[in-house]
């Protein structure tokens, strides 16, 4: 079975509940970004301490203080992003957004609550992630507790116009080459 929809099946998924793959990829990007930012921050802090005190500071991964700060940083990263715009950098890249269960904008209180219960996904060995697959509204455990949902929110119509524009330009310039996948066809709203 192919992962790409045929042009005949062009269905609008704009504002639909986002699926597990998009959400997982967005989460992977966020973990990478947050971890990279944390490591850079630690390196910067080490450098600053070394400049100010003359002592070289080394951070150990098993250090409880580092683990606590890392957990706090993760919480801030997700809670702030969801509270401010409803999307983390990873979600912005994948074109998805957190909203309230009824579709309204997520308020800061629910954003913080969602970030607080988000670690349950790891504490329960990833089982809550599977809920996204079977739940009819594709809501995970954190969503069910925080009263939130994740939807597609990228501008698929513009993406489709960009695709058509590129096709038109190629047709004029070089004849008619084989068409690549139409990006906006699936999620055009």
């Amino acid at each position, binding site marked *: *079975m*192919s*992962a*790409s*929809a045929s042009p005949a099946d062009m269905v609008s*998924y704009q*504002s*639909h*509940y*986002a*699926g*597990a*793959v*998009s959400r997982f*990829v967005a989460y992977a990007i966020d973990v990478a970004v947050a971890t990279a930012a944390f490591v850079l921050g630690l390196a910067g802090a080490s450098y600053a301490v070394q400049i100010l005190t003359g002592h070289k500071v080394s951070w150990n991964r098993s250090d409880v203080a580092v683990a606590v700060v890392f957990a706090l940083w993760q919480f801030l990263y997700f809670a702030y992003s969801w509270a401010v715009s409803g999307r983390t950098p990873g979600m912005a*890249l*994948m*074109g998805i957004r957190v*909203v*309230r*269960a*009824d*579709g*309204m904008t997520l308020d800061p209180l629910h954003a913080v609550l969602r970030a607080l219960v988000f670690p349950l996904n790891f504490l329960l060995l990833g089982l809550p992630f599977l809920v996204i*697959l*079977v739940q*009819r*509204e594709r809501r995970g455990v954190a969503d069910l507790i925080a009263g939130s*949902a994740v*939807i*597609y929110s*990228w501008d*698929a119509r*513009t*993406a*489709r*116009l*960009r*695709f*058509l*524009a*590129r*096709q*038109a*330009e190629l047709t*004029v310039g070089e004849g008619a080459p084989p068409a*690549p*996948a*139409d*990006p*906006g*066809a*699936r*999620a055009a709203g």
Partner: protein
Amino acid sequence: MTDPAEELAQQVTERVVDLVVSALDINELVARIDLNALLSRIDLDALLAHADLNALLARVDVNVLVNQVDLNAVLARVDVNALLDQVDVNDLVSRVDIEALVQNTDLGAVIATSTGGVATEVLDAARSQAVGLDQLVDRWVKRLLRRKETGPGVPPALLPPPVTSVEVAP
């Protein structure tokens, strides 16, 4: 040679007519006429049936007529804002086939050069593939769970507004 009697009669007649006309008070005469009654007796349809309007219009030089119209003065009296208020711009735009416009005009090249880019193209493709995989996983899960009915696809607040039917008067 003209008969002297006939000439005399002609002069007398002309004089009498002059006297009668000068004695008549035309305004009073017109005031006595019941124009409504008079007009009600006229069959305008029959009158128009006799008139060849095409021939009449063919004799009218429209260019000369238009040249005499001061369009600037006419336009100055038009309230454009009131006119535009009556136009449903959203409905107008929704009738435009944007995709055909992009494909068939230079607008496509403009969009491609202004918004295009390798990063944008990659991002569009990545998102599209992710949506495709989402649907694929969804189909497999439904198959495994033997679930036929689909859940709500969109949160209630984001549902598109219902389409209202418009009745057309016969």
